[in-house]
């Protein structure tokens, strides 16, 4: 089944027949996907399956060999960079800088696509930036130096910067990598509360099940399944794509799928109650 159930009106993100290869090796292979407007779409798949590459092509950081990306009806390849930066913001896996910037400086970078060369940041820009910091629960951190922020705080500042771009689409590449459980949950909650069309490569399948409205599975560069977490995250698919045995239950509070995994060569005696061991 592919993504057929969404957005007939052209809103949201649509990727058509996208391919990208490096030195003759096809890394993203003819991917077709849709990310419904105002929802979080999860991009999952094993390491090296092409999630980062696909997201880079969506954000026009990599030029695809073939195919097209449409954002709210317009062809991304035809937009000017500045225009694109007003409509699409990226949160990288771990952004870093050596510069002695404050959190507010970093967030204000999000106004770059709106300002001409010599224009100073207006009061409105600062207000937007401070508001974005408040939205990610970092209101008290505006004057803090980037170098003194923890991993979770940095990710939230980057999210605030992305929000300050006032984009229609948020592209997130493993935004919860290196974050502990509580920071991972709070970051994705913030993304959900932002209410933007979002596409996020996620490592942790339970997080994907919990936060995504739509899930797309990549295997060796191909989109092999797409749909709601319930439809997609099945034991058969997980065995097929990740080569693990998994039980899929229901999360007692959210009603979302809850996955528990077992080592591949499962020769242990069946335990009376499934141990709830998650992947990393």
């Amino acid at each position, binding site marked *: 089944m592919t993504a057929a159930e969404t957005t007939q009106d052209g809103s949201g993100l649509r990727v058509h027949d996208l391919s990208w290869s490096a030195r003759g090796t096809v890394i993203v292979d003819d991917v077709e996907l849709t990310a419904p407007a105002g929802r979080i779409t999860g991009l999952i798949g094993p390491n090296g399956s092409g999630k980062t590459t696909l997201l*880079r092509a969506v*954000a*026009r*950081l990599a030029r695809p060999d073939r195919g097209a990306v449409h954002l709210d009806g317009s062809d991304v390849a035809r937009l000017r*960079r*500045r*225009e*694109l*930066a*007003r409509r*699409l*913001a*990226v949160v*990288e896996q771990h*952004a*870093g*800088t*050596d*510069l*002695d*910037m*404050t959190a*507010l*400086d*970093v967030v204000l*970078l*999000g106004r*770059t*696509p709106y*300002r001409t*060369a*010599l*224009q*100073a*940041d207006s009061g409105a820009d*600062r207000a937007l930036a*401070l508001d974005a910091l408040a939205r990610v629960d970092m*209101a*008290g951190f*505006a*004057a803090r130096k980037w170098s003194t922020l923890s991993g979770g705080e940095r990710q939230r500042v980057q999210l605030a910067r992305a929000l300050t*771009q006032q984009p229609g689409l948020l592209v997130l590449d493993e935004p919860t990598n290196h974050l502990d459980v509580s920071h991972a949950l709070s970051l994705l909650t913030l993304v959900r509360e932002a209410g933007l069309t979002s596409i996020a490569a996620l490592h942790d399948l339970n997080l994907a099940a919990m936060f995504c409205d739509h899930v797309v599975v990549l295997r060796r560069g191909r989109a092999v399944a797409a749909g709601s977490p319930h439809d997609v995250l099945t034991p058969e698919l997980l065995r097929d794509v990740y080569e693990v045995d998994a039980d899929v239950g229901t999360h007692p509070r959210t009603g979302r799928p809850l996955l528990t995994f077992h080592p591949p060569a499962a020769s242990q005696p069946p335990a009376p109650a499934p141990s709830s061991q998650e992947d990393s």
Partner: protein
Amino acid sequence: MGAAPATHAPAATEEPPVHTTAEPETGTGRRRTLRIGAVLAASVALLVTSVLVTVVLGQADISVRHVWTVLSDRLGLSFLQVDVVGLGADRPNEIRADIIWQLRLPRALSAIVVGAGLAVVGAIMQTLTRNPMADPYLLGISSGASLGAVLVIVGGVGAGVLGVSAGAFAGALLAFALVLVIGQRYGTLTPVRMILAGIAIGQLCGAVTSFVILWVADPHATQDVQFWMSGSLAAARWPSLRLAAVVLVAALLLCLWQARTLNAFAFGEDAAASLGVDVNRIRWLLLVACALLTGVLVAVSGAIGFVGLLLPHAVRFLAGPDHRAVLPLSALLGGVFLLWVDTAARTVFDPRELPVGVVTAMVGVPAFIWVLRQRRVQG
């Protein structure tokens, strides 16, 4: 948790909202702007007084008022010579006037232009290559420029200021291109690889330069080698200064115009692209401008090291990383810095002169080591 409210102290459920320091933070930006303004104004004042003072320093018996008189004469501003304090006119004699106008002033202004230009080139390169150690000298670009200039002079094809500068520009561009090609691997430039490539190219260009000069072997050969390899301002005169000043102003305006765009490179070029920057266009535009400026400066002064490394770091320390402050301040303070270094080089061991590059290296190498240790320079 559904704890009974009665058993809990009211303070636990009804905590007063934590007051964050949003107010002073809004002020931080304004305070920083004020501070940058103050540093800028102070730098301009420092630059002007430095010129007046350093031109006076040296063997000939010259006073600040001599300098003032000569300057206002030459600039057609003689009406400024009103004798406000009633000390009587203080006209320098012909020889002193010549020393001031033909030697000291062009030398001082050349030091300013070269220092300013090298500092701006360093700042731009450090940003565009994300390499805190980037410097036109360490990256071999100045040596490439020297080689280009020497080849033009030796080849005798239009050895005027323009010809030599054009040769230096070509050499700088070629050396830079080689460093970028050698320094990159799988499409990424790591800082340490880039520096190593720069040192290699710099050594090669230096060796060829020495070879060419000694091959031609005119009587000043060793002096020439020293000029092109470690720099000197002793030969600075008006014609070369004029061209360098024009190119400096043009390059500075271009870079200032791109200051906001340069800020967007803080998190790397992909981050810059996703903020709407046309990364390739900016990179080509500014790196070619850097090579041009380096070439023209080297034609004036030979290859002077470490100014481009040192000054941008000092300026960021003073004023933060925003290029709208970093670029003009680097120019101003780079000018002041090299002016004083050159003055020290020509006066401390008077009548003998130290090569200015020797002094900048003595200041610059400790700074280089500091940068190397301070920052997490990935290799």
